[in-house]
Structures are given as structure tokens and as C-alpha cells.
């Protein structure tokens, strides 16, 4: 054994390099495979869609046709939409969505944490919150349109209400799940209520909140589009309704494709933010070879 330790130094210097290289290679190969499979799914999906509509198995009147959808998107990009330039529509919906997302998730987080930490408040208010959660958003959208006017506000409200409940319930439960030992330790170490919340409760509940945020941006988009049902002059939702009324299925799906792209971009931002915030976490179980 002592023979070996003589050669330990050069080995030690070289090994990390080698290991690092291997790791990077494996990561690259994996990324390639994932992207390949993603593409495969896309091709199979779009391909069968195109095929079935082409041969008439599926009625393209209702479900559009991928090639037609791409064409429609292209027209929108190059010639603008019936409502104006495409980017304006996207921007309008984005604004509603982002605001709704922020308002809804901030409110959800704050109320979720507050009620999670205060049992009495939770007991008193939870039936109201649960009841409110069953109000059809479509009806709510109409009420918002009436009370807040037909401009940005009502659409933001519709978007944020959709986001709110999801974030609220998760934040609430996240707080309830915080490890009692950690809370005890923080209190012993001298954390006051505020510190306890910011330094223990929130970091602990973060993965709960983050999980809800993943779904929330999509919901905010949905909310904004629902908001556009009740009186809009522009926006991707309006584009979709417009296309729908013109029996332009390709237009409807083109609008949805736009929404999907927006959602994916936002999602990747949220994921980046999340991994910054939760960088301490060990790799999830599934990363270990099972």
C-alpha cells in the first residue's frame, strides 16, 4: 500500500481532469440523446397529425393541419395578423400574463405562508378560500371585466386568480411540512418570527412554492386568455377567438403554439431561478443509478 502512495501525487493531479472530462462527455452525450428523443416525439406527433388530417381520418376543419398552422404562423410573422403586428399581440398577452403571474404568486405565497404559520387564521379562513377556489373562472372573468373595466386590470385579475390558488395551497402545505427540528433549532439560535419565516420557513417551503410556480406561468397565460374573452382589442387570446369565429382551425392552433412557446421560455427562466435558489439540494434520488 505504501508503494502506491508514492505515486499518489501525480495521479491525484491527473485524475480530476480525467474524471471531469469523462463527466462532461457523459453530460454532452445525454443532452444529445434527450434532444434527439424530444425531436423524435415531436416528429412522430406532428407527423401523425399531418398524416391523419391529410388522408382525412381527422377533420382538418376542426383540428387544423400542422403545415397549415406553420403557414398561418408565417403569415402572421411576415404580414401581421388581423389585429395588427404579431409581436404586439404577444406583447399584450405577455404583459397581462406576467403581471397576473406576479400578483397571483406573490399573494399566494404571502397568504400561504401567513396561514401556514397561523393555525387559527387558517382554520377560520380556509373554508372561504376553498369555497372561492370552486368559483368558475369564466364567470369570475366576467365579474372582473365588469368591476375592473375592460383594460389590462381585469385580465391581470383573471390571470392572477388562477395562479393564486395553486400557489397558495402549495405554499401553505409547504409551511406545514417544515421540519420541526429545524424550526426548533432556529428559534433556539435566536431567530425572531420574521427571521424564522425568511430563514427557515421560506427556504424549507421553497421546493413546494417552486413546484407551484412551474404550473403557474402556464395558468397565468390561460387566465390572460380567458380574460381576453370578455372584451379585448388585441392579444393572443383575441387572435384565437378571432380565428375560431372565422372557422380558421389553423389560426386557433397557431395561437396556441404561440402560447406554448411563451410558456416554455418562461418555464426555462423559472427553472433557472429555481436551481439558483435551491442549489444546496442533493441530486434527486432518481439520478442515482437504481
Amino acid at each position, binding site marked *: 500500500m505504501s508503494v502506491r502512495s508514492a505515486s499518489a501525487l501525480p495521479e491525484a493531479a491527473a485524475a480530476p481532469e480525467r474524471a471531469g472530462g469523462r463527466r462532461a462527455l457523459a453530460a454532452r452525450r445525454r443532452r444529445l440523446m434527450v434532444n434527439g428523443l424530444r425531436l423524435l416525439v415531436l416528429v412522430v406527433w406532428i407527423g401523425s397529425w399531418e398524416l391523419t388530417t391529410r388522408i382525412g381520418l381527422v377533420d382538418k376543419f376542426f383540428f387544423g393541419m400542422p403545415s397549415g398552422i406553420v403557414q398561418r404562423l408565417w403569415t402572421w410573422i411576415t404580414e401581421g395578423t388581423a389585429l395588427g403586428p404579431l409581436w404586439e399581440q404577444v406583447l399584450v398577452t405577455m404583459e397581462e400574463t406576467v403581471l397576473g403571474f406576479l400578483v397571483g404568486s406573490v399573494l399566494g405565497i404571502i397568504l400561504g405562508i401567513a396561514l401556514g404559520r397561523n393555525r387559527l387564521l387558517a382554520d377560520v379562513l380556509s373554508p372561504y378560500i376553498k369555497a372561492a377556489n370552486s368559483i368558475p373562472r369564466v364567470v369570475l372573468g366576467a365579474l372582473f371585466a365588469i368591476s375592473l*373595466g*375592460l383594460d389590462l386590470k381585469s385580465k391581470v385579475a383573471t390571470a392572477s386568480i388562477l395562479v393564486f390558488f395553486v400557489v397558495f395551497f402549495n405554499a401553505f402545505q409547504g409551511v406545514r411540512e417544515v421540519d420541526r427540528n429545524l424550526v426548533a433549532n432556529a428559534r433556539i439560535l435566536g431567530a425572531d418570527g420574521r427571521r424564522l419565516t425568511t430563514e427557515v420557513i421560506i427556504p424549507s417551503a421553497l421546493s413546494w412554492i417552486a413546484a407551484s410556480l412551474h404550473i403557474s406561468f402556464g395558468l397565468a397565460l390561460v387566465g390572460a386568455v380567458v380574460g*381576453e374573452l*370578455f372584451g*379585448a*382589442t388585441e392579444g393572443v387570446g383575441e387572435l384565437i377567438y378571432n380565428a*375560431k*369565429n372565422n372557422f380558421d382551425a389553423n389560426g386557433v392552433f397557431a395561437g396556441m403554439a404561440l402560447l406554448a412557446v411563451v410558456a416554455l421560455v418562461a418555464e426555462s427562466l423559472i427553472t433557472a431561478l429555481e436551481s439558483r435558489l435551491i442549489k444546496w439540494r442533493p441530486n434527486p434520488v432518481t439520478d442515482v443509478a437504481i
Partner: protein
Amino acid sequence: GGTASPSPGASAAPADVKIMVGGLNKQIYLPNMLTQQLGYFREQNLNVTLVDEGSGQGSEDAVIAGNVDAGSGSYNHTIELQAAGKYMETICQFGIAPGEAEVVDAKKAGSITSVNDLKGKNLGVTDIGSGTHTLTLALLGKANVDSASSHFVAVGAGDTFIAAIKQGRIDAGMTTEPTISRLVQSGDGKVLVDLRTPASTRAALGGDYPFIGIWARTDWVNAHKDVSQRLVNAYVKTLKWMSSRTDCKMPSGGPETVLKVEQNYVANFKGKTADLSKTYTNEFANKAS
């Protein structure tokens, strides 16, 4: 005030007007978009925003709530709203026919040849309680068919309506253009009762049936006579351009037909009445050049 003037409003002060339309690209609402695109609002120095109401639930709420200045929708709402204590009046009536039609599933067209045959059938309407529902009730009522024997199915408009016909979920249904043409062209539907022309409307409903027009809150109209006038000026010009048979005026007898339909066939309006003179005004249409 009495400043209302039929002359082009280029000299008048510019004004912003928001008009909500219950489906910008439905044919019955066409004059709205046309006026905008022909530039007739501009001519009147009006800066009009056409707000699309995509939900098909009507623009009345937005008008009553003051979220928009005026709305484009069916006349009967002005009557119904009086029962709820809200006053709204039509300042421009686009047509004297509803522009709708009862379309019957082509596969069943053999057995359904008249309104009488609709008895006991599944009838599509946009939504329970909506304008198409009222019209269907009126049709059945005129033909002395007990409406309680029929099933009304809320199928929305457009492709959901078409799907409902294709799937046999409804035997017939009340809908509008372009859905009607679409069904007829594809061979899936046949027009049973055509409420698109004045003549057939009179035959079916016993009188003119004013449907889509422009209405606004009565107090708004009174406070904005000048703007109202300029709006009507613009619409009249468009209707002329379309060589339409109307000129924004309420057809005489039309309101009474609608009121009768409401009182006889709309459950919620039974036993109620409305002051028809407050539901429309021809003041601006008369002055419009």
C-alpha cells in the same frame, strides 16, 4: 344639447368611443368592422375602438357597467333590461331580420320539414336563455308547438355547433352566418326556417324582428347627443354603402313583435312589460344624412 348635426363631424371636437361587439367577425355584426375599415368613423372625427366580446355572452353588461360607451347586440336586450331597472336604447338598427336561421341536420331533413316537426326534438341554441333560445321559442310558439316538449341544448356557436349537428347531438338548431353557409355547403345542414330575410322573418314571426343594432345607456345617449349623432351618421353611410334596406331606423312594429315574443315565450319575462319608447330612438337616424 341641440348641437346634434347631420353634417360630417370633421369640424366637431374629436371624441373617443368604445363599442363592444358580440363577435367581430360574425356576419350580423359586419357593419361595425366595415364602418371602421371604410374610415367613416374617422370622417366623423370619432376615434372608435371596437372591442371584441369573444365569450358570446353579450355586451350588455359592459355597456351597463360603463366599461364601454356603446354595444352592438340584439335589440331584445333593451327590453329585457328594463325589467331589471336598467335603461338602454337602440340608436341604430342594422336590420329588420334576425339574420339567423333554424338549420336542420341534413340526415333528418326528410322527417323535419316544418317547425311543427321540431316537437320533441333536440334543438341547439348558443346558450340557454340567449337570443337564439328566445328566437327558437318564438318560432315554436308561433307554430303552436309546446316548447316544453323540446330539449334545448347549449352548443355555443361556430365549430361546436357544427360538431353538434355532425354528431347528431342536436336535430336542428338556431345559428347565424357564417355557420349556416358552412353547414349548407358541406351538406351537413339544411335551412328549415330562414330568419335572414325580412320576408321570411315576417312569415315566421308575424312581423319585423329587429335584431342586431347599436345601443347605449340612455343616460349616455342623452349626455352625448353629438357623439351619438356622429356615430349614427357613420353607420348610416355604411349601411348605404352595403345597399342595405335599412338606414339605422327602427322598423315600425318591430319593437312590438319583439315585446310580444318576450312576453309570450321567455319564461323570465312573462308577466312583465317594457316602455318601448325608451328602448330605441330614431332621433339620430332621422337626422343622419
